């Protein structure tokens, strides 16, 4: 099925119906939509589509259409590539992760987690978030506090010493966080996903 049809069709309707009763099912659906969004992003890039290209302002006859660029601010060079050797590109890309960390990085150091646990948790991110700039200070603080409590309990209940936490244990904790129904955790993550989904729905309409 074409991605646009997927996003127009049942999946979105299902999301709208269940949005008032957040659940792990909805969370899983949101993950799928996010993944489709990222795939669409990659396809769009390959096709030379630049989602950040300036547009003609609303109100004019060409409102919403792509401008030729030069709309102020950055000038995107969408097709540019690194001139470095390919091996360096891979190393470069692998070294960086983007997006919201499900387990805040600040906890890695605070708990003195092992290097392998840090590595696993550092990879637990949403991926690049295009919907909007970061906001929600209070919610994010509460989210961080909730994860701190959960991690503390997880280590205590499983008698894990932070400095010896294995990759498997870190993976299990990360997965628990993704399924967690604590509203401080679930609502914050859902908020991010919903914004991202709405962003992609708007983008797809513009592609039409």
């Amino acid at each position, binding site marked *: 099925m074409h991605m646009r049809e997927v996003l127009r069709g049942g999946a979105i309707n299902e999301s709208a119906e269940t949005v008032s009763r957040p659940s792990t099912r909805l969370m899983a659906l949101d993950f799928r939509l996010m993944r489709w969004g990222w795939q669409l992003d990659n396809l769009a890039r390959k096709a030379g589509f630049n989602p950040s290209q300036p547009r003609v302002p609303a109100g004019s006859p060409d409102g919403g259409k792509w401008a030729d660029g030069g709309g102020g*601010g*950055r000038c*995107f*060079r*969408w097709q*540019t*590539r*690194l*001139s*470095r050797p390919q091996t360096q590109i891979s190393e*470069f*890309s692998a070294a*960086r*992760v*983007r*997006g*919201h*960390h499900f387990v*805040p*990085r*600040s*906890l890695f150091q605070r708990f003195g987690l092992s290097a392998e646990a840090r590595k696993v948790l550092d990879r637990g*991110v949403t991926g*690049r*978030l*295009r919907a909007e*700039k*970061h*906001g929600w*200070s*209070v919610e*994010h*603080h509460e989210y*961080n*506090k909730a994860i*701190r409590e959960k991690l503390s309990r997880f280590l205590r209940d499983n008698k894990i010493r932070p400095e010896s936490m294995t990759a498997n244990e870190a993976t299990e904790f990360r997965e628990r966080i993704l399924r967690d129904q604590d509203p401080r955790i679930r609502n914050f993550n859902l908020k991010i996903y919903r914004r991202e989904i709405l962003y992609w729905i708007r983008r797809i309409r513009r592609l039409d």
Partner: protein
Amino acid sequence: MTEYSDDERQDVEWEAIYHRLSAYLAPLGENDAFGEGDYWLLDDNWGNWQHKLHVASLDLLRPEVITGIQRLLENYPDWSIVVAVDPKEMHWPAMGLIVRSHEIIDGLQREYFPPEYRDIHYPGSRVGTDRD
């Protein structure tokens, strides 16, 4: 000369600015991700050309601190640092500053501040609009 794609340049510059900002802020207070310190410098790169600094201590809004932050962006014209005012236990409306290399956009609502902070002024700043 190395040429980066925009995404990779964003990564490289995000990290460079993050480290500069961390070093600059460290002597000025405690960085805490749980809202229990003087500030929190968001340590996730969400992919935008922006850093976010949550400020709990109003001392960090002093003009000399903010212009110091602005100086860190001298070679980064594409970037902005959002300074969100987020004092502990205070339910103030969302407000803050957007600091760019060439301007400071002032969105502070000083009427909420204690008297000693109400006269803060940032040279060359402008009031934010809905286009910011």
